């Protein structure tokens, strides 16, 4: 009988030990107050900023911050950057979708705005971009909302452009310009919107309208000139004006070499041009 008790006692100790190890593993910060956990999450987040963003160290610090405050939307979203930037997209999207779900449940759209931007440029998922932008506007009730540094409507219009729905792209750009005017902003100052508006007209074979917007942007101080000249030259080719086409291609080449071209970190913009494209077009003109 005593022997049985001894064995039972040993088994209970073993289970107790395992349980306490498991509990510690499940969340070592359980005993801390809410304020202490927030402070700790901030500290881990700050530490993560001191190491390379795609490194394991960065991820350990970020995971620790989320262990302290598991529903911290901003830290969750920012933890996804490490995976997205290194192309580990399953994990990146798992974290980002979770951040969006928590954020939108709380009536906020910050994470969704970032997702819409990512969907367009990092995932080329145009349907999701449109869906996310619509949801951002629906939740926030603000038609002119920013999505991670760019207008959400600009993202939506580019998504339509990439889907080949050029009329919808033009409608979205026009709507964006109407809102900009209401806010006292000159729509011509939005280079990207005007550039893709011109490209949408080009795709619909409305060469004159396309050329109008390209040339209008060529006169603006902060536009990107190599691409504008290149696509203007292509229109002159179609209009059989080889001389003007050549002038614009050569100007495009000159500006390209001066780096007055689209140049975005992380991604290549839609319809961004490269030296090979210009050389090929100039070669075609020779024939």
């Amino acid at each position, binding site marked *: 009988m005593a*022997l*049985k008790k*001894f*064995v039972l006692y*040993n088994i209970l100790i073993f289970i107790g030990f395992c349980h306490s190890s498991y509990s510690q593993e499940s969340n070592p910060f359980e005993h801390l107050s809410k304020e202490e956990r927030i402070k700790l999450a901030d500290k881990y987040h700050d530490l993560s900023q001191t*190491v*390379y*963003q*795609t*490194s*394991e*160290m*960065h991820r*350990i610090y970020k995971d620790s911050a989320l262990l302290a405050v598991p529903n911290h939307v901003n830290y969750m979203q920012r933890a996804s950057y490490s995976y997205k*930037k*290194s*192309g*580990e*997209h*399953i994990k990146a*999207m*798992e974290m980002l*979708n979770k951040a969006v779900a928590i954020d939108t449940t709380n009536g906020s759209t910050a994470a969704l705005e970032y997702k819409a931007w990512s969907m367009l*440029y*990092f*995932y*080329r*998922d145009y349907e999701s971009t449109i869906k996310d932008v619509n949801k951002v506007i629906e939740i926030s009730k603000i038609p002119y909302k920013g999505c991670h540094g760019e207008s959400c409507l600009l993202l939506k219009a580019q998504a339509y452009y990439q889907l080949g729905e050029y009329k919808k792209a033009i409608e979205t750009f026009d709507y964006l310009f109407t809102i900009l005017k209401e806010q006292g902003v000159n729509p011509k100052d939005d280079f990207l919107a005007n550039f893709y508006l011109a490209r949408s007209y080009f795709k619909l074979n409305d060469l004159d309208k396309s050329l109008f917007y390209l040339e209008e942007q060529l006169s603006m101080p902060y536009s990107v000139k190599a691409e504008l000249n290149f696509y203007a030259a292509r229109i002159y080719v179609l209009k059989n004006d080889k001389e003007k086409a050549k002038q614009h291609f050569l100007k495009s080449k000159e500006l390209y070499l001066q780096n007055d071209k689209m*140049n975005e*970190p*992380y*991604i*290549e913009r839609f319809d*961004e*041009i*490269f*030296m*090979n*494209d210009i050389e090929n077009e100039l070669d075609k003109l020779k024939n």
Partner: protein
Amino acid sequence: MIKTLVLFLSLFSATFCWAQTKPETDLYVAGYRNEDFNTAYLEFARKQHDYIYFIDHNNKYHTMANRNFEKDTLGIKTKLIITDNKISLYYTSDEDKQDYHYFRVENAEFTIDQVRELKGKRYTAELDKVAMIPNRDLKIQREIYFLDSSNVEITHTYTLNNTVLYTEKEIKNITVHSMDNKVFFSFYDGELSLNNRWYQLTNLQKDKFSFLHYAETKKIIDVYSLNSNKNAEINTSNFKMCLDSRPYEYYNFDPDISYTHGNNSLLKLLIKDAPTTKGNGFITIHFAINCDGKVGRFGLEQMDTKYQSASYDPKLIKHLIQEISKITEWNLPEKIQTDTHRFLMFKVTNGKITEVWP
């Protein structure tokens, strides 16, 4: 029955206590420097009383007192963190910061004579990823062929669903070092230097052995099994990384390191004669571009349109990897000395590749 159980428990406790009381070595091996970059570092450290002795590959040593220094005469702050199994040393000055990490060596004793048995044999280990290039779906095997006492041939084979997609090969120098009856290997190009890495031999049997090293804060044990036949090879490329360190990301340069002629030209190049697959989703192919602009060290992640794990025809993946491996036109900065991690993401629409980015 209960008596047997008690006997078993007693034996278990005795073994456990013996393991606990076995004297631990005071020898530490460098895991890496710059913890987030996992840069190879070839050194040993010995902790004795109030001092730490650092021993390089030429058996030269220097010592430091086992304590922190606020600032020395050169303005360098030294912070030492010693735990049961790790010594971390942080040097911080106004201009720079460096950190070095040493791990207590395993109590696995061998002689150099035992190691000689490896000569002329091929061994293969399976790795999750290689050169810190992200990988989720490829099966990656590293084969070490011990050519003689000073050279090995290392082959990496990338396989998907039993289809060999690609192999790459390199010849490396090898050195074997014994310390306190523990055996360490290092594989290197040119001269052995501080920028190489020690791999501790932790198991050696007739048909297998294990190497232990440290990377990205983790202890990594690679188990190599004897290969009686040479692994299947396909389109073998000669490829070497320039540094044994985390490669920089492509966007750490200005401009980003990318294909010189842009994504549209790249798409035309890569989809020419490409096999089709089934479904819709994304394929991400990871790779390194070494300091000479050559491509190698692949990884793969396949996703569906819901960003969940998916699977596409290995023939298509094989085509993409082989075509990517041929690309030489990267806009690398002049005199670049580091390797770069780059990835290409492909959109699959109705079984066809329709876009490539970033």
